[in-house]
């Protein structure tokens, strides 16, 4: 579905990613792991068209999207729920969700709205409330809900568990699993290694601007090196 080949990217003269290869197939959860500041969000934002890669190719369902405009990429069904949620704080919860279908999924707006509030009943209670007044966990639900309103074919989740209480983190991973069980392909970008590997099919580990390790999630979970460097075991 998503194919990233030899992508180099960064900011101005600074190269952060030095040749990334990565793939997500239909129906998969693929985890992209790596410590803080390694360039995970940089990769997401190059895939989503917020930034243009310096070199390399990005293809979605066989179509080259490297350097395309964000709205064109979204129109194809490649949807990102960004780190830090980035909901519209001055808009109501309902308006936030409606804008999820601004570019894609407009025809299905009413149906999808029902579907999203069925997944997140909390959001319905808060429909008229400004998104900026929601708790962190609720904002994360809203951000994911807004992403689902775009009728994603592939959903990129950038650190969805960041800043959530441990109980909510559990719920979040359960939800991601559930969305995937319904057929949605997911690129899960996380620092939370154990829980990500528990639900992912495959995983990549990003270090120093390159993919340092990749493979089946189950294999990585039992990898000595990974355990030492990320879990302190």
């Amino acid at each position: 579905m998503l194919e990233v080949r030899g992508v180099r990217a960064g900011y101005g003269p600074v190269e952060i990613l030095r040749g990334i290869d990565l793939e997500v197939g239909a129906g998969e959860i693929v985890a992209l792991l790596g410590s803080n500041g390694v360039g995970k969000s940089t990769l997401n934002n190059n895939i989503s068209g917020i930034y243009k890669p310096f070199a390399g190719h990005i293809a979605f369902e066989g179509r080259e999207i490297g350097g395309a405009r964000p709205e064109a990429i979204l129109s194809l069904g490649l949807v990102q729920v960004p780190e830090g949620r980035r909901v519209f704080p001055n808009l109501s919860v309902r308006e936030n969700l409606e804008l999820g279908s601004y570019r894609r999924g407009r025809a299905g707006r009413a149906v999808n709205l029902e579907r999203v509030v069925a997944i997140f009943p909390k959001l319905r209670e808060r429909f008229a409330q400004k998104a900026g007044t929601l708790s962190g966990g609720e904002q994360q639900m809203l951000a994911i809900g807004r992403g689902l309103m775009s009728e994603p074919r592939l959903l990129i989740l950038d650190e969805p568990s960041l800043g959530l209480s441990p109980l909510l983190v559990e719920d979040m991973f359960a939800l991601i699993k559930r969305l995937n069980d319904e057929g949605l392909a997911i690129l899960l970008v996380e620092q939370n290694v154990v829980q990500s590997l528990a639900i992912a099919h495959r995983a990549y580990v990003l270090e120093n601007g390159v993919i340092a390790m990749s493979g089946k999630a189950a294999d990585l979970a039992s990898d000595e090196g990974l355990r030492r460097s990320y879990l302190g075991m």
Partner: protein
Amino acid sequence: MTLDIAFAGIVNGLMSGGIYVLVAVGLTLIYGVLHIINFAHGSMLMLAMYGVYYLFKPPLGVDPYVALPILVAGSFAFGYVLYRGLIGRFSHGKDENILLITLGLSIIADNAALFFFTGDTQTIDVAWAGRFVEVGPALIPMPKLVSFVASLALCAALGLFMAFSDTGKAIRAVAKERQGARLVGIDVENIFAISYGIGIACLGAAACLLMPFFYVSPSSGHAFVLVAFTIVVLGGMGSFAGALVGGLLIGIVESLGGLQFGEQLGQIGIPLVFILILLFRPVGLFGSR
């Protein structure tokens, strides 16, 4: 000041306030989305007023109220293209550059107006403009009443557009969260241009409503932009409701000031309000943070 005179003063002030609201709503909308003061605001109003003037003059002879939809559409297109072709392109995403470009535009527009239209003040004479409407003890010139009602109606329409249309929601979204907006597929640059266009369209409407009872000269935009800026600060930068309440308030302040201190000194109330707001409530009446 007797009660009757004060009442008449307040009603008259409210009537002037309508136009102020319209001009200020444009300014505050542009500020809210682009985070810059549009220094070209006064000059754009002046250009639109000349537009109304030349549409009215022979050979065209278009009534200013008939010209309103033309001016609104034309001003929107002008603002949109100006943003797309010039302001957005040369600002490289830096707010201070947008500021300088709009300042430069206003200087160019003012001098071009001097060159092409000369410095003379021009007025138009519409047949019905001399009629008055009695509101209690107040006598309101017809065109002022029309300007008041039409300004508020247009603001209401704009308010509904901002509240309920997808484009209106996108404008509000872009005002606070640009990256989030890009990720739902909003073309942020396009929204900037649309917002700038709407701000200028407000001026096109204001020009049509003003000309039946006001004059135009190359510098006639300045007075309005100073007032509008005070209103925006008074109401709260970027606040729609603030521009509405602030505009009407400033209209009343100016009118009562005029009654008390004479026409020339009447405007003294406006900088006074400005200073008081900065001292006691710098975020404005409806501002946050």
